[in-house]
């Protein structure tokens, strides 16, 4: 091979290597789309989410997942953005069923502004994970001390939501509402603490271990 041919080969290899590295890097740093909290007329921030037993589309269609409402559309994401030093009001429609908890400590509500959640219109401080339906998921921000259990729908529910997501309000669901106060700006992980990864040992694989399904970040911006 002539010297210029060698040089060309080396350059081509270099370009290919850079392209490969760049594409892997871009793949790795991909986050789910960020959903912004809606601001109500009273100036309160609103986040509306739902949980579904199986997403029904995408690469992991069997995964249980959260969805979040953005501009009236349900998007599959767990990246939430809110303003710092404000109250955020959450409404979560729980379409999934549940079971007794691994650690019943999470039966109780903590970290909300009044220490309670509003479950189907009733304020409650603690839920019974041994009841029919158990607890399906929790919404928890450990670094803020927030933990809100969300009872699952009854195992005898007449009209459970099938796939694919999102589920309409006509299906059986529990509605959980609560308000938390967020402080300084920062990025706070939030998670579900109910081992709900069906088919995984101890239930904590799959959706529990994949960003965008049962855990995400609360981005608090100034």
């Amino acid at each position, binding site marked *: 091979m002539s010297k210029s041919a060698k040089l060309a080969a080396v350059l081509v290899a270099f370009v290919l290597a850079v392209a490969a590295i760049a594409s892997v890097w871009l793949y790795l740093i991909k986050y789910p789309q960020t959903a912004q909290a809606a601001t109500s007329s009273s100036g309160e921030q609103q986040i509306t989410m739902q949980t579904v037993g199986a997403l029904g589309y995408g690469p992991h269609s069997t995964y249980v997942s959260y969805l979040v409402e953005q501009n009236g559309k349900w998007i599959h994401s767990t990246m939430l953005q809110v303003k710092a030093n404000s109250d955020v009001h959450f409404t979560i429609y729980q379409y999934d069923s549940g079971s007794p908890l691994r650690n019943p400590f999470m039966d109780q509500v903590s970290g909300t502004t009044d220490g309670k959640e509003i479950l189907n219109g009733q304020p409650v401080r603690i839920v019974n994970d041994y009841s029919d339906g158990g607890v399906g998921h929790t919404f928890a921000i450990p670094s803020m001390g927030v933990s809100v259990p969300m009872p699952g729908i009854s195992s005898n529910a007449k009209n459970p939501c099938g796939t694919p997501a999102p589920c309409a309000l006509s299906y059986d669901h529990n509605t959980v509402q609560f308000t938390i106060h967020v402080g300084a700006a920062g990025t706070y992980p939030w998670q579900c603490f109910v081992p709900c990864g069906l088919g995984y*040992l101890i239930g904590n694989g799959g959706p529990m271990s994949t960003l965008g399904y049962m855990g995400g970040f609360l981005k608090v911006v100034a």
Partner: protein
Amino acid sequence: MAIDTTPAPSVDESGSAPLHNTHDTKPWYTEGNLVYALIGAVLGYTIGHWFGNWLASGYQQIQGSGQNDYALVLGYLLATIGWLAGLGILNYPLMKMVGLHPSPDEDDGAKAHRPLRAYFTYTLDHKVVGVQYLVGMLFYFFTAGLFALAIRTELLSPTRHILPPGSYLTVVGEHGTMMMMMMTSVILGPFGNYFIPLMIGARRMAFPRLEALSFWITPAAFIVLLSGIIVGGFPTGWTGYAPLAVEATQGQDAYLVAFGLMGTSMIVGGFNIVVTVINYRAPGMTWTRVPIFTWAMLVTAMLMVLAAPVLVAGTYMSLLDRTVQTALFDVNHGGSSYLWQNLYWFFGHPEVYILALPGFGIALELLPVFGRKPLFGYRTAVAGMVGVGMLSFFVWQHHLFVSGMNPDMRPVVMLTTEMISIPTGIVYLVAVGTLWRAKLRITVPVLFILGMLFNFLIGGISGVFLSDVPTDAVAHGTFFVMAHFHYTIMGGLIFTFFGGIYYWLPKMTGRQLDQRLGRIHFWTLFIFFNSTFLPLFAVGELGMPRRVFEYEKTLQGLNMWVSISAYFIALSMLIFIYNFIKSTILDPKPIIPDDLWGSRGLEWMTENPVPENNFAHVPTVLSGPYEYGTGAGPMAVIGAVPVEAATSNEPVTHEGGS
């Protein structure tokens, strides 16, 4: 990218022609090549995936999780078999079944002038395998290094995340696993395979097919491991602790299959080296004349052969837990999470010495050459290496000091672990003795050896803090541990690996790397290596666990310093890559003398390029390899010598000192 580096020999092209005529008459389809290998891999994967789906798609846990581990694992395994079959590796075992016994000469395309394509084939020429390994290992090393840069990029900030947490753990796992599994062969692969036969005066390897197989498994393991990113990543780091590994997503299968494959490669490659060194030493190459590098390779290979089976068994068990739902690591059903830790570290600690001993070997091999002195305390050095090898099987529980397993045994493990510093210290004893009044030429290889002596000292002594239970209580699981083993492995193994490249590449390719760039490479690497890893000891002691994506804000300054230093390490590596490509491909300098460094070693007595059979005839070794200044004649002659000449050539022995 293999490089056609060997210039055509001026004579005897015709001499080897008849051999290759028989070679050419074989039907075309029995010859493996890379294209067939790729086709085989794709076919194998497809069949395995289909079969796994057929087998298990109705199972409850697969319908629930939506992931079929059977399909993926079988796909990986059959793809590997297809890859090897496409390369022609299965031809020999199949021919054996019908009673054929092709001798190595008949089906090997090796000759002194090796065309570029020879480097892309399954070959029985240990010189070609050595070069394949060299290029492969460099490629794996730099790939894994890129993951390290990704880790450091994420750790620039304690709370703002560039990588999502799942990706971050995948990157950590890819970096750790790739380095730990591939770099076991970083010296044994290229230099061990290339130089052991030359050093012991053998004209062939004992099992050249196994040797070639050991290399060709590595690309499969590499690709399988990388594919883990696409199939969901894996969260366990390189240690793969169950039950986390059992509950993880499909990327874990990639980790387990890749590590298992690499374990197989280690077994196969080490097996060949052990048998070769034991049996193929030339007449006169007594155990006390075997070069110290060969001793290091022998002990390393022995560790591989005896420790890696436990790894293979462990990954197999973990795969069973993930596929057929055994409960070996599931405490709820009669298993135990300690079982994996035991199996893993029973392999894992010898593996650490698999990664350390080759470095010792190169350091002690090069010091006599450049100090123009005999190796000081040769027998002690050998005893030290063998001692490290044996002790390494008795220390694994120091990884479990805080685990609550066998807590009453901790003093014993503390003793065995600290005892390892005695044979390791011997390396320094020998180096100190050899450097005494040496005529030291500070060439580029020597710079790397001195750098290794500096780094490994820090790595070794920080190890004492980890072997002592009360101080381990602080350091365990933190960046202190991480800094410790980077000092031993990167500071020890990788530094000597580069030293080895600068030293031996002229013999392997007939090209010498640019020495000025080599010096720049060394100094940047040395400075920024220390600047990267020294602060990490402090970071760990101050409370930063390994493998976290969030850390305390007070540690941000140190972490940023470390990250920026790490980028400079990358820059230093770029200098090396540039030098390597420039000096071997773009701007090769004219051929250099056969014995570039003035070494007595038998490997430098071969022609340049090394002919197919290494030596025209089996050499007779007359004296040891390090007889500098003792008045001994050349180390060996090619072919037989009269008996009296062999005995009269005994070197003068000096017991120096006061």
